[in-house]
């Protein structure tokens, strides 16, 4: 930050304050999927990739002892942490920023480079955030639903967020090519591990459902909106009212 002239620092802070004070975008209730026919094609490709690559790989990876898999996944999560701190800061969520910073320090030092996760036991669980959320906090709307090749369900806003998180990730920027490879492999292994961990759930959506595209879309949007909402008091569909009172 010291290289930045004082004026631009003030300007940046001002700009952020304006963005945050504009208020978060409203959370959609409905489905907005104008590119559905194209998305469905991508979904078909993704399903094929899962069937021939990810699913079998996750079965093989499950053979590796659990503590080792957990270590790799912890390591991968720890490297994403600085990026979350940045997002917390530009969302003005200072509590989350300090909690995630403390978590990163504890896990990197006591947790041997992030392989162990002592921070969670010390009351510092990961407070997830990403640039997609930042855009939401800044007032950008969700935009249409998209299914991305390889990465799966997303929205326009979140796809932009993904790209920004990728190019601005401080861990990636500060490391050399060989270290970047370690970073990428650990993230991939974490994804493979998660596919194995939730194998029955993912299988039931991808292969047992008669419309896996619609299920994946619904589950993604529900979870993502739930995450962005960050409040407990929501109203649900009332089936009794739906069936008896009309």
């Amino acid at each position: 930050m010291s290289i930045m002239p004082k004026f631009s620092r003030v300007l940046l802070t001002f700009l952020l304050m304006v963005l945050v004070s504009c208020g978060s975008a409203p959370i959609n209730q409905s489905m907005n999927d104008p590119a559905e026919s194209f998305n469905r094609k991508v979904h078909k490709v993704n399903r094929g990739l899962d069937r021939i690559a990810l699913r079998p790989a996750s079965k093989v990876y499950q053979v590796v002892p659990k503590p080792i898999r957990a270590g790799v996944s912890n390591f991968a999560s720890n490297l994403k942490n600085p990026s979350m701190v940045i997002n917390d800061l530009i969302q003005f969520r200072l509590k989350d920023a300090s909690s995630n910073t403390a978590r990163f320090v504890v896990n990197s030092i006591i947790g041997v480079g992030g392989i162990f996760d002592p921070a969670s036991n010390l009351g510092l669980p990961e407070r997830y955030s990403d640039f997609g959320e930042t855009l939401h906090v800044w007032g950008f709307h969700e935009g249409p639903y998209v299914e991305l090749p390889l990465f799966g369900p997303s929205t326009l806003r979140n796809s932009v967020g993904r790209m920004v998180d990728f190019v601005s990730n401080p861990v990636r920027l500060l490391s050399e090519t060989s270290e970047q490879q370690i970073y990428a492999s650990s993230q991939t292994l974490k994804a493979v591990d998660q596919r194995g961990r939730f194998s029955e759930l993912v299988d039931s959506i991808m292969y047992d459902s008669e419309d896996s595209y619609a299920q994946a879309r619904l589950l993604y949007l529900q979870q993502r909106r739930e995450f962005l909402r960050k409040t407990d008091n929501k109203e649900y569909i009332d089936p009794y009212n739906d069936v008896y009172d009309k």
Partner: protein
Amino acid sequence: MKLIKKTLKNFCILISAIFFINVSLITVSQALEQSKAEELIKKISFEVNNIISSSRDEPVIIGELEFVFKKYADTNIMALTTLGPARRIASATQLEFFKESFQIYFLNKYARRFRELKDGEISILTSRPIRSGVEVKTRVHLIDWAPLEVLWLVSDRSGEVKIFNIIIDGINLLSSERVEIGVMLENRNGDIDLLSASLRDID
């Protein structure tokens, strides 16, 4: 003038008394419901915890979980609401058959989900009133994994205190089943009997 004032005063007292009684009645009935709902979830958690921590064979465990959900879930209302508008054109026998089939499908599918929580432990956090009932918030602690938040929606509108929806980490069971059953019905050209038969067949 005095008489009018007095009548008005009495009237005001009467109105506020009625209002007060009503309000207290409502809050009392809600408070009662909330504790009843928590009691139910305590019972379910206790039974589920016992079942998933046991070392019996997989099919036995799944059978026992199915039994718990059969006892404590209002699968009738879940079936009717997921069927959607099609329930209005269905005959009574068709609806009966569909409700039975939905129960088989539901128990089969979700008992397995809870089997996956092995080594987990369910604990109750809070509850609050919602339309038609109470939401009970629980947390499932898992070894090596971040805890899951599971919300149970409970109502007594069936005549008994039962659960009518479960929300696991933001994923709403009734919403996904509405989509799934809707698609299945569409794929069978709106034939409810065919849909019911398929629900029984799913593994």
